[in-house]
């Protein structure tokens, strides 16, 4: 067996968890037979295999050391992922231009040592350029302004 690392306990755990959730979701799906496979056949077997691999990875990991999460990771994680979610929420009601502007600004805030003036200029120029490119030239079907 290959030598596995400490994080591997959690890696194995993740595989087992995902496989378990899949099996739960597939509980009512028909398996069928080998000659006439039902919709459940492939996914159920894949989930079982995933759980199996997860178990092996977790068992052979050296220790179950705690998973340390650097607190500095949280700020960009929350801001960037939150930015995407916000973009999705605001795109239709607030229009393309303002939403793109907000996303660029929010993303810039995720970095360390934010320079606000620079971020504002980049966001303004960037959203204007994106509006011209995607709405005017490529004709993506989206409102530019709030309606």
């Amino acid at each position, binding site marked *: 067996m290959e030598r596995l690392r400490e994080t591997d306990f959690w890696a194995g755990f993740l595989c087992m968890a995902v496989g378990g959730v899949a099996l739960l979701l597939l509980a009512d799906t028909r398996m069928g037979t080998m000659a006439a496979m039902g919709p459940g056949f*492939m996914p159920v077997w894949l989930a079982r295999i995933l759980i199996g691999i997860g178990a092996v990875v977790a068992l052979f990991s050296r220790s179950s050391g705690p998973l340390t999460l650097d607190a500095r990771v949280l700020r960009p994680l929350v801001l960037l992922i939150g930015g995407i979610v916000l973009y999705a929420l605001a795109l239709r009601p607030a229009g393309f231009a303002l939403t793109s502007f907000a996303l660029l*600004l929010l993303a810039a805030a995720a970095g360390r040592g934010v320079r606000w003036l620079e971020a504002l200029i*980049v966001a303004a120029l960037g959203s204007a350029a994106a509006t011209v490119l995607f709405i005017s030239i490529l004709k993506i079907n989206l409102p530019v302004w709030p309606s």
Partner: protein
Amino acid sequence: MSGLGSLLDGLATAFAPINLLACFGGALVGTLIGVLPGLGPVATISILLPVTYYLDPTAALIMLAGIYYGAQYGGSTAAILVNLPGEASSVVTCLDGYQMARQGRAGKALAISAIGSFFAGCVATILIAIFSPPLIAVAQSFSAVEYTSLMSLGLVGAMVLARGSLLKAFAMTVLGLLLSLVGTDPEVGTRRMTLGLPDLYDGMGFVVVAMGLFGIAEILRNVDSGDTRALVSAKLDRPWPTRRDLRDAAPAIGRGTAVGSLLGVLPGGGAILSSFAAYAIEKRIARHPERFGTGVIEGVAAPEAANNAGAQTSFIPMLTLGIPANAVMALMVGALMLHGVTPGPTLIDEKPELFWGVIASMWLGNLMLLVINLPLVGLWARLLLVPYRVLFPGILLLCCIGVYSVNNNVFDLYLLAVFGVLGFVLAALDFEPGPLVLGFVLGPLLEENFRRAMALSDGDGSVFVTRPISAVVLAIAVVLLAFTLMPAVRRQRELAFKE
């Protein structure tokens, strides 16, 4: 063979001014749009389809073909520069191409990608001219059984190309397969793992998954590392490959071309495998396989050549059988039918000028791509000198727009957020996203063919080893796996001896 003679006639057709213009226009638009993530050739061709009404069928098809390989090439540019794979084929280009870019060698990666693509395009054009009919005969002997075996080989290839633990790569492949089956079952319409969300009824798109796992996760990693200056800390290397680079890349380009040409002919979607297969082969035969993934030029050259060759030879089933191998080819069939031309076995006799003109224009189009792109290489490479704190919000915005534009669906943006987090978690746990993405791409094909193979054989699994082509393919998979396991076994034993 008369194929080459006809190809010369085709060249005459392709050099007609209107066709030259169509070819150039297609290649240019394709390149520009291909660079934008999400907006792949399918979207571009759909947008431009009305334009082709005003062209005759030959010029129309030449232009659409130009967009197709232009976008293919543009996609690699985004993959190399900012780790955004807009197409399944550019996932592999990310692995070494992006690493080269980070070391200041973006120009070389882009140039070798252009040169490799050009070479592959030239060879594939000649192959199409000479071998179309016999290749089709081979491709047609592929039934669901052979495709199942081929997909399995592809998945083994994906595990082999991972850098870390084979077991964890296996887990990622299985996870990718599992995720690809979310949605409505294609045979009987049962909904699977959709959490009751209508937006998941049709499954998750490739672009969302790839953008999340590669693009968003990469931004998170870079912002997190606190390095908000330029992405390239070292100074930019000369954009042109040195003689040594070319010497390293040349054999890889040759092998990539061969692999891509062969897989592209398969109408069941073999072209998807071409870049993965080419990379896996390079890694397998390399003297230092551990260097792959750290920015080796062969890791860019081989998949790029394979990808372009496959893109080209995938025209063979479309033009000779009327059977589209992928969504782009389906669009081309549609475009031809709009012009009253039905692609099929009679096309080559009924419309020789169209058939050979299009094939000749492929070579021409590749030349134009080289002409369009080589001057841009230096410019693109310079883009990376822009401070990262300025660059990454733009990349994030491009990801969001690209993902949205695929289906015009806001839900895909929520999925992007989910896959961004997943990509981050997987990276933290030392999982590689590459095998996951290939599993995701091949999952539906594997399921479809496996089910069909079993239905046709009444559930008799022995068909996989009794049919010769399938048996050979599976044997290759087993050998590949065994070879990959061996070094690990060897290392393990060495360690044991030391202790």
